[in-house]
Structure formats: structure tokens, C-alpha cells
């Protein structure tokens, strides 16, 4: 693990033994180990004591399709809790080819700098001339400066520099570590970019095994992912709409009249000009779009919008024009702000404006109505430039109560300070439970999509069976059976996080075990991988406990206890008492304390990380 202290400029390497890597495998586990050991409880997320960790996995950089992802984590400036995001592309691959499994960024530089990792040579370089530049031009300028057009460059744009609390990190022009505001952590550290290239591919124990895995994927992906290639992640928009679960007008409704022109099919037929992939992936789910009409210009440089972005700026803002959504996507990418959080902050403001909850002088000149493209884009411009109302919203949902009042603040749907992803909990209550319990705040990746387990033919039910879930669980039910499903399958999906494997790949635990064995030669089992994922989740919860988080932050916004306003699920609501009863059951199943919401001492010992219990005890947040 490469370690860079920006305060002193010192660059060193942390060597770890096999035991360390076999404890975590990569991703969240590596990150949270460092954060628990090095980030002082209560520290300022923007201060020099915060530590930003990029972590690959034992699989990253191999030829295994879907293994190109990398995780990043730090104390989040958006939530004050454990912060983490992941992205694919080529950056993580090049990092491992340079011989490193991760990068630890500590301290704070006095002037803007960037890090250049060129195989064994690592140096900090002045970035004063790059400060203020947008994503693409920064990446291009750095490639020119280091004289390597094949370097992968992780950067922040002006959004990160301006400390927008939901700023993200661009690992390439099309790949973003989107969530929890890690781009703002880079900005606070005055680290503009990390450029990397390497030529040494990781050694693998069983090359034929890797070939078998690659062939298996090539033979099997099309049946489940074929439409992903053709239409991208927005393939499901019409189905979501028909089901009544398409977030619409700030989650007040579940069906949007303009859904068809937001669909993956429509995007394919109109503005799509290409498809791209991460390293070694045949799926090509990444969209490349171009717009040059109606006075709108969207460059193909930044790829195109994914489902979350389409719902955030489309249906949830009442907008049915895919070109407008693509434009919003590009603005976010140029400035490196998370499209989910930004879209949700805007839809919250639109609802506030509709209900007269915002001071008139603050919204002067803005057409803040659902469906107004210019109003949405105008507020987006204010956010990325930190002007007017946008400056307030750039601080994220936490603290809005003091600035806009309690009633207005409640319209910004968030958990632990992180705005919701675009999945409707009244339709997917398991997902809602996961929103409440995720250590990063509302999060959809290491979580379940309830319909995927609702019948014996459902796509993920076979994998659930291998996890001892022998009967399907109905989509909208919230029962002990659903809690069990959520616990088991969240741990199952979190294995992807530990291995930095793309969640879209149709791998089950069986394939993941084969992959780890083929790469490392270790004789691993599903049990071992599941325990690594549970270890990482438990440690992230422990980090939050140390920061003062309790059950009080494991909540759903009131909106989801109210009836849905339209669509096939009109009238559907989560019963509040039932939700919190099931949350208690989830704590029990995971070995977490019902008041403090952290893993109990016995659980941490069971996971082999008793030292974390000692850390919690020092902070006074361990009861037994």
C-alpha cells in the first residue's frame, strides 16, 4: 500500500503479509482497517487528520471480467460517518499494474498538488496551474505533462475544490467514485489528481483457471445482461414505471407520465453514439451520448447518464427530456459532483418551492417548478458554482434545518446526511431497510432489490437458495423472512465490495471462490468470503459508533411511511412500527447492539477483530 503524507511530502510503502490480505481481500475491509487505526474519532472530515484510502482487491488488474473496480473511503464530509464509493474503468487496474494494492493519502498540502505513480517512481507535482480546471481538461493536461497518454488519472473538478459536500472523484471521464463526498476530501487536502500507469500485471496462480472463468462469463452474460449492453442501466425504466416504483417528483409518486422518453431504449434510439466498457469486460454497459440540438450541447467526452442519474434529474424532477438529463449529467461530471445527491438536492428544492417553503429572495430568477428544465439546470449551475441557494445546498442535507427551517429540510430525503438513491422503499422495503442500516447512509449497491428474490424464477433466487433462503420472499412484504433475506444477501453482495467486483456480473459466490483461488492460490471457501464481507460491514459500523452514531440515525425519511401518490402502488406505505421492529431483528441477526447500533464485543471477536471492540470501548460505545 502506497502511503503519501501531503503535509510533509513524504512517500513510503506499507508492506502487509498474506494474513492481512486474506482477512479483507480488498475494498471496504482494507479501507476501514486504516480508518479505524488512523483517523481520530471526531476529527474534521476536511482536516489534515482525515485519511483518504483507495483500495483495490486481490483480483483487480487481472483478466477476470468485472474486476476493474476500486474502492475509496474516508470519514465522509457529507455524513460525518464512514464514507465510501466505488468505480470501474482503468485506474484501479493501472494502480495494481504499478505494484500497489492501494493508496493512503494523509495530511494536507499547502498548495495544490497531484500524485504521479509511474511504476516504481512516485512523486508529488505542483498542480497550481490545474486548480480550477474541469475533469476532462485536467486529465488531458496531466497526461501531457507526464508524457504518458496511457496514464489513468483520478481527478477532482471545481466541485471538489469548492468543498461541495457531495463532490465525487472521476477515475476517468466516464467513471466516478460517486457517493459520500470523497471528492471534497481530496479538495480539502488540495490533492487535484492521482495519475498512474504501470506495466507489471499481477501474477496469478492458475492461468488456465482465469481462462475458464473468462470463457464462462462470455458464455453466460448475455442471457441476463444482453439488454444491459444494448440499452444500459436505464433498460428497466418502463418496467419500474409499470410496477409503480419509478421515483417521481421527489418520491411523492411512483409513476411518471414521461417515462418512455427516459428509457434506455429511447436513449439508444436518439442520442446514443457509442458504448464503452471497463477493462476486460465484454458487457459495455457504459453509454456514450452526444447532443447538439435545441440549443443544447452535450459532448461525448463524459459518456452518458446511468439509470440513477436519469431518474434523479428526470422523473424525480418531473423532466421527460433525455437531452436535458444528459446535459445535467455532463455538468455534474465536469465539476465532479455526485449525480444522485445533486439531483436529489434539486428535487427537494423543487418541492420546497412548490409549497412556498423557501425565502423568495433566495429563489429569485429561478423557475423552480417540477418539469422546468431551465429551473433545474439553473439551480444545478448555482450548486456547482456555490452561488445563492446552490451554495446552501452544496453543504448537503445536514444542517439545512438551521438555514431553511425544519419543514423545508424534511423535503430533502436523506439518511445520515446522504441523499437517497433512486429506488422506492415502499416497493422495495428490503432496500429501505438497507438504506437505514448502511454505514454510509442511504446506499443501494451492497443492498437488495426485493423483486429479484420474489419468485423461484427471479434472477437472484438461485443464489439466495445457495445462501439457505429456500423460499421466495414477496416483494412488498416486510417480515422476519425479508430481514433474513436482507441480511444474508447483503453479506453476499458485500463480497463483491471486498473483491472490487462489478455487481452487474452474473457471478455467484461459487464463481467468486473460483476467482480468488485462481488468482491467489489460496484454498478459500464461500464461508471465508462471507465472513470477510461481514467483518468489513461490522468494522464500518464500529467506525460510525465511534463517531457518535446510534440507532437514531438508522431511520427512514417520514415520506416512506406515507402513501405513494400515483402509479400501480398508489396508496402503498411502509408501516412505521413494523419497519422499526424489523430493524431490531436485523440488529439481532447481525450481532449489533439495539441501542448503540454497533457490533457487540462477541461479534467482533467472532469475526476475528477483537481489537475493534477495544477501540469502541475506549470511545465509550460498547455495552458488553
Amino acid at each position, binding site marked *: 500500500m502506497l502511503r503519501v503524507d501531503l503535509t510533509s511530502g513524504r512517500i513510503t510503502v506499507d508492506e502487509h503479509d498474506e494474513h492481512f490480505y486474506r482477512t479483507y481481500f480488498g475494498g471496504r475491509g482494507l479501507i476501514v482497517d486504516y480508518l479505524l487505526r488512523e483517523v481520530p474519532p471526531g476529527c474534521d472530515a476536511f482536516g489534515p487528520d482525515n485519511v483518504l484510502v483507495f483500495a483495490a482487491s486481490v483480483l483487480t488488474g487481472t483478466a477476470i471480467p468485472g474486476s476493474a473496480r476500486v474502492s475509496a473511503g474516508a470519514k465522509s464530509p457529507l455524513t460525518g460517518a464512514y464514507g465510501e464509493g466505488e468505480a470501474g474503468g482503468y485506474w484501479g487496474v493501472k494502480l495494481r499494474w504499478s505494484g500497489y494494492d492501494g493508496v493512503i493519502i494523509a495530511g494536507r498540502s499547502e498548495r495544490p498538488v497531484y500524485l504521479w505513480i509511474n511504476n516504481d517512481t512516485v512523486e508529488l507535482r505542483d498542480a497550481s496551474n490545474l486548480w480550477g480546471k474541469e475533469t476532462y481538461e485536467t486529465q488531458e493536461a496531466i497526461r501531457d505533462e507526464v508524457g504518458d497518454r496511457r496514464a489513468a488519472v483520478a481527478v477532482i473538478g471545481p466541485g471538489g475544490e469548492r468543498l461541495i459536500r457531495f463532490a465525487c472523484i472521476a477515475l476517468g471521464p466516464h467513471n466516478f467514485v460517486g457517493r459520500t463526498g470523497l471528492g471534497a476530501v481530496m479538495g480539502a487536502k488540495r490533492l487535484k489528481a492521482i495519475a498512474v500507469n504501470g506495466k507489471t500485471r499481477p501474477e496469478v496462480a492458475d492461468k488456465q483457471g482465469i481462462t475458464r472463468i473468462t470463457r464462462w462469463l462470455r458464455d453466460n452474460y448475455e442471457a*441476463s445482461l444482453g*439488454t444491459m449492453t444494448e440499452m444500459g442501466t436505464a433498460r428497466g425504466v*418502463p*418496467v419500474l414505471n409499470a410496477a409503480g416504483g419509478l421515483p417521481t417528483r421527489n418520491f411523492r409518486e411512483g409513476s411518471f407520465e414521461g417515462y418512455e422518453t427516459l428509457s434506455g*431504449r429511447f436513449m439508444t434510439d436518439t442520442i446514443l453514439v457509442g458504448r464503452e466498457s471497463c477493462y476486460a469486460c465484454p458487457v459495455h454497459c457504459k453509454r456514450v451520448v452526444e447532443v447538439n440540438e435545441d440549443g443544447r450541447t452535450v459532448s461525448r467526452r463524459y459518456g452518458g447518464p446511468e439509470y440513477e442519474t436519469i431518474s434523479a434529474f428526470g422523473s424525480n424532477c418531473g423532466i421527460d427530456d433525455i437531452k436535458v438529463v444528459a446535459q445535467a449529467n455532463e455538468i455534474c461530471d465536469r465539476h465532479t459532483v455526485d449525480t444522485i445527491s445533486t439531483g436529489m438536492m434539486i428535487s427537494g428544492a423543487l418541492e420546497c418551492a412548490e409549497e412556498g417553503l423557501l425565502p423568495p429572495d433566495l429563489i429569485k430568477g429561478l423557475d423552480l417548478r417540477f418539469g422546468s428544465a431551465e429551473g433545474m439546470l439553473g439551480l444545478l449551475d448555482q450548486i456547482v458554482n456555490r452561488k445563492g441557494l446552490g451554495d446552501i445546498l452544496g453543504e448537503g442535507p445536514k444542517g439545512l434545518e438551521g438555514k431553511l427551517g425544519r419543514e423545508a429540510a424534511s423535503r430533502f430525503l436523506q439518511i445520515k446526511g446522504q441523499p437517497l438513491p433512486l429506488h422506492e422503499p415502499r416497493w422495495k422495503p428490503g432496500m429501505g431497510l438497507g438504506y437505514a442500516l448502511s454505514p454510509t447512509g442511504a446506499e443501494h449497491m451492497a443492498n437488495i*432489490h426485493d423483486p429479484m428474490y420474489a419468485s423461484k424464477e427471479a*434472477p437472484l433466487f438461485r443464489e439466495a437458495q445457495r445462501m439457505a433462503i429456500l423460499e421466495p420472499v414477496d416483494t412488498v412484504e416486510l417480515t422476519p423472512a425479508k430481514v433474513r433475506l436482507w441480511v444474508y444477501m447483503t453479506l453476499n453482495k458485500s463480497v463483491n465490495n471486498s473483491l472490487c467486483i462489478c455487481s*452487474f456480473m452474473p457471478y455467484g459466490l461459487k464463481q467468486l471462490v473460483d476467482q480468488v483461488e485462481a488468482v491467489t492460490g489460496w484454498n478459500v471457501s464461500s464461508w471465508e468470503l462471507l465472513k470477510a464481507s461481514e467483518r468489513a460491514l461490522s468494522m464500518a459500523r464500529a467506525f460510525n459508533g465511534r463517531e457518535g452514531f446510534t440507532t437514531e440515525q438508522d431511520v427512514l425519511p417520514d415520506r416512506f411511511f406515507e402513501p405513494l401518490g400515483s402509479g400501480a402502488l398508489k396508496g402503498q406505505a411502509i408501516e412505521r412500527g413494523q419497519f422499526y421492529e424489523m430493524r431490531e431483528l436485523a440488529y439481532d441477526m447481525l450481532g449489533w447492539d439495539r441501542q448503540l447500533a454497533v457490533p457487540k464485543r462477541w461479534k467482533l471477536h467472532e469475526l476475528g477483530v477483537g481489537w475493534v471492540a477495544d477501540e469502541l470501548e475506549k470511545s465509550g460505545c460498547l455495552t458488553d
Partner: protein
Amino acid sequence: MSDGLSDRQETTKERSHRAITVTVKLSGFLTRITPAGPFEVALDTGSTVADLVGLLAERLGDGFRKAVIDRRGGLHGGIMLVLNGEPVPPRGITETAIDRESDFAIIPVIDGG
């Protein structure tokens, strides 16, 4: 229909040999707009998966059609078809023949990204 669903009747007649029974199961929200529980459909042998979906669209009405078939006449991207326990690749629905008594499921795939 561009993906071959509209050509179902003619194709079925051409390939007609004898009737087979396909047990159809719909999942998720589709069960709210169609008959509850599995039901049987008689189909000529040699019919394809596209033929079967077209037949279901005729029988089950507009709610089903809108939920499953897109504006170009193909399947919505979020619809997955499973024949005898195995997913049917989207590009294979016009070629995949149903030549024996079969179980067929239509499943909304609801993920994200």
C-alpha cells in the same frame, strides 16, 4: 414488430405440427395486471419464444403489452424470459424454439446502476 413478435401467427402456422402445453408463470408486478397463478397456453410445436410472447400479448391485453413490449415492438429492457429454468438471451427469442411441454416465466428485472 422489429423483434419478430408481430410475425407470430404466420410463423406458427408455417411450423404447425401438433399442440403442446406451456405453463406460463408471471412474476412481480405483472401478477397485478394478469391472472394470478400459473396458467396454461396451447402452442404449436416449433413455435418460438417470440411467438409465445406475442400470443400472450394478444390474450392478456393492453396492460400486459405495455408492461412487456416496448414502443418498437421488442421486449422492454427490464424484462427477462426464462424457459425451463434457463434464461433466454434477448437476441435469441425469435430463434429459441419451444418443442416440448415447457415451463415459461416472464420476470421483471429490477436493478439499477
